[in-house]
C-alpha cells in the first residue's frame, strides 16, 4: 500500500462514487473545511462582539476582573496550544511523506498537549469556583479598579466579565474536547496505516480545525487575561 503508483488512483477505495478523481474529492473536502471554519469565525464573532462592547463600556471593572485571572496559567496554556499546533503540522507532514511511525507519535503528542490544555483550564476554573467568580447568586468579586485603589469594582460589571469569560473559554474548551475526540479517531486510524501520501484528507482537515481553535485562543489570551496589567 505504501508504494502505490498513480495508476491505483482510480481504484482508490477512498474515492467516493460521485467524484471524478481523488484530486476533486480532496479539493472538495478542503474547501468544505475552510467554509466550516468561516462559520466558526462568525460563531465566535458573536461573543467577541458582546465582549468588545462591554469592555468598552465597563473598562475599569473589566480590567480589574481580568487581573484576577492567573496570567501564568494563561500564558502556559497558550504555549501548550502552540506546541500542539506544531505537532499537528508535523503529523500532517509525516503523512505527506508516508511515515507512519512519526505520524502516530505526533498525533499522540497532540492529544497529550490537548489534554494538558484542558487540564490547566480545569485548574483555572476550579480556582474561579473557589473564589466565587462563577456568575450566579454566589458571585462575589472583591477588589478595586486598577489605578484607583479606593474605587471598588462594580459587582455586576465584574460578573459580566466572568460571564463572557466562561462563555468564551467554555465554548473554546468545547471545541478542544471535540478536537481531542477527532484526534483520538485519527490516531487510531493512523496506527492502522490508513493515511498515505495519496490519501490523508481527514488528517489535513482536522489539522485545519485544530489550528483554528489555536487561533481563537491566541486572541482570547490577550483579550481576557491582559486587559490592563500595568497598574
Amino acid at each position, binding site marked *: 500500500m505504501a508504494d502505490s503508483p498513480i495508476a491505483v488512483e482510480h481504484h482508490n477505495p477512498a474515492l467516493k462514487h460521485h467524484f471524478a478523481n481523488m484530486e476533486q474529492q480532496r479539493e472538495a473536502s478542503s474547501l468544505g473545511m475552510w*467554509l*466550516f471554519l468561516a462559520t466558526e*469565525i462568525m460563531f465566535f464573532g458573536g461573543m467577541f462582539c458582546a465582549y468588545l462592547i462591554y469592555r468598552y463600556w465597563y473598562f475599569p471593572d473589566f480590567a480589574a476582573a481580568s487581573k484576577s485571572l492567573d496570567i501564568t496559567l494563561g500564558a502556559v496554556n497558550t504555549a501548550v496550544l502552540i506546541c500542539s499546533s506544531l505537532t499537528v503540522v508535523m503529523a500532517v507532514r509525516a503523512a505527506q511523506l508516508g511515515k507512519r511511525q512519526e505520524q502516530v507519535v505526533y498525533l499522540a503528542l497532540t492529544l497529550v498537549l490537548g489534554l494538558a490544555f484542558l487540564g490547566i483550564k480545569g485548574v483555572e476554573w476550579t480556582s474561579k469556583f473557589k473564589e466565587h467568580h462563577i456568575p450566579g447568586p454566589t458571585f462575589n468579586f472583591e477588589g478595586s479598579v486598577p489605578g484607583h485603589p479606593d474605587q471598588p469594582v462594580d459587582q455586576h460589571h465584574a460578573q*459580566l466579565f466572568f460571564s463572557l469569560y466562561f462563555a468564551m473559554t467554555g465554548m473554546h474548551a468545547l471545541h478542544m474536547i471535540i478536537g481531542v475526540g477527532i484526534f483520538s479517531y485519527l490516531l487510531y486510524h493512523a496506527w492502522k496505516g490508513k493515511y498515505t501520501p495519496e490519501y490523508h484528507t481527514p488528517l489535513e482537515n482536522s489539522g485545519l480545525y485544530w489550528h483554528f481553535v489555536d487561533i481563537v485562543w491566541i486572541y482570547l489570551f490577550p483579550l481576557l487575561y491582559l486587559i490592563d496589567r500595568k497598574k
Partner: protein
Amino acid sequence: MATAALTAERENYLNQEYGIKSWLLTVDHKRIALLYLLSITFFFFIGGFFALLIRLELLTPAGDLVQADTYNKLFTMHGQVMVFFFLIPSIPAVLGNFLVPLMIGAKDLAFPRINLLSWYLYIIAGVLMLHCMLTGGVDTGWTFYTPFSTAFSNTKVIEAGLAIFISGFSSILTGLNFVVTIHRMRAPGMTWNRLPLFIWAHYATSIIQLLGTPVIAVTLVLVVLERALHLGIFDPTRGGDPLLFQHLFWFYSHPAVYIMILPAMGVVTEIVPCFARKRIFGYQFVAMSSIGIAVLGFLVWAHHMFVAGISLYAALIFSALSYLVAVPSAIKVFNWTATMYKGSITFSTPMLYAFGFVGLFTMGGLTGLFLAALGIDVHVTDTYFVIAHFHYIMVGGAVMGYLGGMHFWWPKISGRMYPESLGRLAALIVFLGFNLTFFPQFILGYLGMPRRYWQYPPEFQVLNVLSTAGSTILAVGYLLPMVYFLWSMRYGKVAPDNPWGASGLEWMTPSPPPTFNFDAPPVVDWEAYDYEHIPAPQEARSGG
C-alpha cells in the same frame, strides 16, 4: 390505464429501491429533496393553521376566541415555524437539493452524507419544536427579544431556542454543501457564465447561510444560558444591554430574509425565460445582483431598531445602507420585465406564479423603502404595516416563487404532469386571496394598529374582517395544489423529459432522473438560456 405505463418505466431514483429504509438512509440528493418536501409541507400547514387561528381571533375587536396568552403563542410559533421550519429550508432544501447537481451536471452534492445529516438535524429540530408546541409553547414573538425572553416569559423559551439553534446547523450544512458543489463539481464546460441563474441565486443564499447563521446560533446559546444561569449579558438590571441582543439577532435575521427571497428570485429567473422563450435579459447583471444582495444584506440590520434606542447616528447609517440593498433588487425586477420584451409568451401555471411573484415582490419591496425611511418607520414600525410588508415579500414573493418552482419542476421530480387548468385556477385564487388578506393590513398599519395585538379598538374591525376573509380564500388556494399534486402522482399524464422545452441540463435527463443523474458526465458547449436553439413544445400552446 396510466398505471400500465408504470410497469414499463425506466429505472429512476424513485423506483430503484423501495421500502422505508431506502428512503431514510438514502444519500441521493433527489430523495433527500423529497424528504424535505414532505417535512416542510407538514410545517407549512402547521404554520398556516396557526395563521388561520390568528386571523379568526382578529375577526372581532374583543379577545374572544382564544386567551391572550394563547394568542401570543400562536403568532410566536406561526412566525418561528414559517420562518425557520418552512421558508428558510423551502426552496434551497427541496428544489435546490434536487436541482443543483442536475443543473451543473454532477452526480450528487459534494457531501451526500452531510446532506442527509442536515435533514436529520432539521427533523430533530422540528420534533423539538413540535414537542415545545404540544407541551405549552413559547410566547416571546419569533424575535425572542430580551429581557422578556430571558427573564419574564414563563414559557418554553429554552426548548424553542434550542430547536432553532439545531435547525440553524441544518441550514449551515446545506449552504456549505451547495458552495462546495458549485465550486468543485461542475461538469466540463459549465463555466461560471453558463450557470443557470438559479445556481447563482443559491450560491448567494449559501453565503448568507454560512456567514449569518452562526451568529444567531451563538446568540440563542447566550439567551439560553442567560435564561438558565442569569449571566447578565442581556439583562439591564445586571449591567447588560438588551439592545445587544437585537443587534446580534438582526445581524442574522435581516440577511435571513434574503435567504428566503433569493432562491425564489432564482426560480423566477428560470421560469420567465422559458415561457418567454428567450435568453434572460442581462445575464451578468442578474447574477451579480444576487451576490450584491447577499453582501449588502449584511450592512443594514439595525433598520429593525430605529425606535429601539440606538444612537441617532447609527440610525442614519443603517437607513442609508438599507437603500443600497434595494438597488440590486430593482435590477432584477427590471431584467425580468425586459426579458419579456419581444418574447413569445405562454401563460402556463409556473409563468402565472412568476407574474404574481414579480408584482407582489415589487409591492413588498417598495413598502420596504417606506420602512427604511427613518421618519416613516417611527410611525409604522411594530404595526400591521410591517406585517403587510413582509407577508407581501415572504408569502406573495417567496411562497409564490416556491409554488411556481414546484409546478415548473414537478414533471421532472415526479415524472407526471399536474392538471394545467386546475393549476392556473389555484394560482389565481392564491393571488386574489393573498391581496385580500394583506392589502388591508397596510392601511391598518398606517392607521396605527400595533402588531401582536390580541384585541384592538373597534374602528379597525372592517379592515380586519377583510383580511380574515382573504386568508380563508388563501387557504383554499394552498390546499388545491397539494391535492392535485398528490392526485397527479398516480393519475397524472406521464411527463416527457422536457415538457416545457426548457434549457438546462436537468431537462436533458429522463423524467424522473436516474439515481446517478447522468450516465456519462455531460460536456457543456452552449450558453445558458439557449432558447434560440430549443424548439418550443407543441402541447403547451398558449392557453388564451
